[in-house]
C-alpha cells in the first residue's frame, strides 16, 4: 500500500520514515499544501494529515478539498489538537480516524493493522 503523509515537523517526518522502513508499505511525504497536489495520484491508498501546518490549521481545508475531489480512501488525522472543538472540526472535515500526538509507534501500528489492505 502507498501512504501519503502530510507533515511539516522534521522530527515527526523522520519518525514516520523510520517506521515505514520496517514495514512493507510505501511512504511519501508532502511538507506543504502545494506539494500535496504534486505528489498525490490514484496510486495513493491512504492519507495521513497533520492538521497544523506552517502555523495554521490548513489540514481541514485540505481534507475538504480531497473529499470534494472524490477521494474516498481513508483519511487519518495525526494532530496535537485535542479540544472538543477540534474533534468536531475533524469530524466535519470527514476524517475517518484521528491519532492524537503524542503517540507511540505501537499505537500507530495497531491502528493501521485494523485496516484490510
Amino acid at each position, binding site marked *: 500500500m502507498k501512504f501519503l503523509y502530510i507533515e511539516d515537523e522534521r522530527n515527526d517526518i523522520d*519518525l514516520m520514515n523510520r517506521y515505514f522502513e*520496517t514495514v512493507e508499505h510505501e511512504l511519501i511525504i508532502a511538507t506543504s499544501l502545494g506539494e500535496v497536489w504534486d505528489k498525490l495520484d490514484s496510486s495513493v491508498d491512504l492519507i495521513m494529515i497533520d492538521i497544523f501546518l506552517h502555523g495554521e490549521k490548513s489540514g481541514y481545508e485540505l481534507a475538504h478539498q480531497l473529499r470534494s475531489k472524490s477521494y474516498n*480512501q481513508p483519511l487519518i488525522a495525526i494532530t496535537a489538537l485535542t479540544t472538543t472543538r477540534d474533534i468536531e472540526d475533524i469530524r466535519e472535515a470527514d476524517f*475517518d480516524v484521528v491519532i492524537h500526538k*503524542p*503517540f*507511540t509507534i505501537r499505537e500507530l501500528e495497531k491502528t493501521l493493522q485494523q485496516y*484490510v*489492505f
Partner: protein
Amino acid sequence: MFNRKLFDSLLFKISFRVILVEILILTIVGTLYINRFFAEIDQRLEDSVELPSQLVESGLVRLVSLSDTNALRSLVGDEVQELILSNSRGQILYSLHPEYRQLDVYNISFLESNWFSEQNPGSITEWSSNETGNIIYNVSRFSGIMQDEFYLYVQSDTSTVELQKRNILIVFFLGSLATFISTLAIVVLFFQRTVFGRLNATINTLQNVEQGDLRARIENINSHDEIARLQTSVNNMIHRLQSVFATLEQRIEDRTQEAEEARQQAEQANEAKSIFLSNMSHELRTPLNTVIAFSSSMLTVPDMYNGKSLDPIFAKDVKTIWMNGQYLLGLINDILDLSKIEAGKLTLNRRAVDLVDTFNGVFSTAVGLLQDKPIQLKPEYPDKLPPIWADPLRIRQILLNLMSNGVKYTESGSVTLAANIENNRLVISVADTGAGIPESMLDSIFDRFTQVKMEHQTKGTGLGLDISQRLCQMHDSKLEIRSVEGEGSTFSFSLPLATDEQINAEEQEINELLEIGSLTEEGILDPTSYYNIVIIARSSSARITIRNIFEEENHNVFESVDIDESVELAGAIIPDFIVVDLGKGDSEMAIVEALKSNEETQNIPIVALGTKDMSEDTQYVMDLYLKKPIHGKRILKQITKLFAEQSLEGLN
C-alpha cells in the same frame, strides 16, 4: 351624584353646618319676632273691639248715639261684624244689623246673671267661634241714668287677622328659604372657587404624580394665601422628586452599562484564556511527541534500529525519559480538563452504554501500570450490564485515575474494580489493600496537588482526584471514599440506568470517527450475535487482519484458500457469511462465482473486499462489496447493516 363622595366632601359638611346654624338662628329669632308681631296684631284687634265700650266708658260717646248706624259704622271700622246694645232683659236696643232689633230673644250668653259680678270687670273680651267662623267679641256693662243696666256687645271676625298672620308666616318661610339658598350659593361658589376647587386641582396633580408622571404640576397659582403656598410647595416637591429620579435612572443606566462592559471583558478574558490553553496544549504536545514516540520506539520497535535492541544500561534511562514524557502528557491533559471543567466548557457525551467494555479497557491498561509490584488486579463485575447513562470516555478516565492511584499506593495485595446494580443504579468501586488514608486527610484528599506522603513516592499529577470528583459530579453522582489506615481504601460512585428513551436514541447512526491516542480509546458498538465465518484470502497478512477483526468479537473464524477447499468448507459448515479478499488476480472472483453456483452454498451471503472500483454488473454476484483499504470496524458495521436490511426484507 348622591353617593358617598358627596357626603364625604368638606363642602357638603360646611354647607350642611351653615344651613343648620341658619335654621337654628332663624327659628329662634323668627319665633320671637313672630310671636311679638302676632301679639301686637291680636292686641290691635282686641283694642278695636274694645274701643266702643271705652269710648262710652270715657263719656266720649253716649249710648244714644249708638242708634245711628252710619255714625256707628264710621266709629268702629269695617272689621266689626256686630255691635249690639241690649238691656238687661235681652232686648236689643241697637245693632249694626237693624233686622235684629225686632228680635226679642237673642242668644246672648253674657246675660247669665253670674257672669258679671261685683268683682268681675265690667268688660270682657273673648276669642271664640260661631257658625261663620272665628270671632273676637267684647261685652261691656254700663249703668244707665235710671239705675238700669245696658250691655254693649262688639263682635269682630278674625279672618283678616288670621290672613295677616298667615301672610307673615309665609313671608317668613319664603324669606328663610331665600336666605338658605343664597347662603348655600354663596358658600358653595365662594368656597369652591377659593378653596375646594384649588384643593381638587392639587389632589389631581398629586394623583398624576402617584401614577408616575413626574412632570405634572399645579397650574394657575395666582395668589399668596395658604392654599397657594401649599400648591407652590407641592410643585417644588414634585420638581425635586423629578430630578432625584432622573439622577437615579442615569446612575442605574451607567451602572448597568458598566456591568455589561465588565461582563463582556470577563467573557473575552475567559475566551482568551481558553484559546491560550488550547494553543499551549498544542505547543506542548508537539515536541512531546518526539520525546514519547522516539523513546518508546527505542524500547519497543527494534526494527527501526536495524533490528538492534537497546543495551539494558541505556534502556533503563530511555525508559525514564519515556515515563516522564507520559507524566508530562498526563499533566497537560489534566490541566486542560480541569480548566475546561472550571470554565463550564467540558461537556459530557453521555450515551446508553454497556460499561463492561469500558471496564475491560481500563483493566487491560491498568495491567501496564503494575511495574512488577506484587499486586493482583481483580475484576468483579458481570459479563454484561444493562445500558447505563454515562460518558464512557470519562468513566474510563475516572476509573484509570482510581486504579492507578490504587496501584500507586499499594505495595502488595490487590486492587479490585467492582460493579453491580443496587437500587436501580450501577455502583462502581475501586478498592485497594494499601496503606489507607488517615481520617484527618479524608476531606482534603480531593484538593489539588495534595498527595499522601509515602516512602516510595511515585509520580502522579495531583489533579487526578479533583478531576475525577468533578466528572462524577457532572454525571450527577458523587465520588465517595471509605478508608481504614493500614487496611486500604475504597473509592466508589454510582450511575443511573439508561431510560428506554435514551436506549432508543442510541440505536441510531453513530458518527464513525475513531479517536486513538495515548490515553483514549473508543470503539463502535459491535453486533450482538456470534457468527460462524469463512475467510477466503490469498495474502496471509490480509487473512490475519481479517481474522483478527472477527475474532476480537468472539466470532468463529474458518479459513480456506482455493476453490475446492472453499466450496467444501462452506458446504460443510454453512457459515453465516463468507468474506472474500479479492486479490490482484481474478482467481478469487472465480471462487465467488463457484460458491454462488453451488446449491448448498448459494444462499450464504458473500462479502467481498477489493481494490478496484467494481461495476454494477460484476457487483451483483456478491452480497456486499467493500473497497480497500477499509477499517475493520467499518467492515463489521457494513455487515451488520446488510443483515439488518436482509431481515427487514425477510419480514416483508
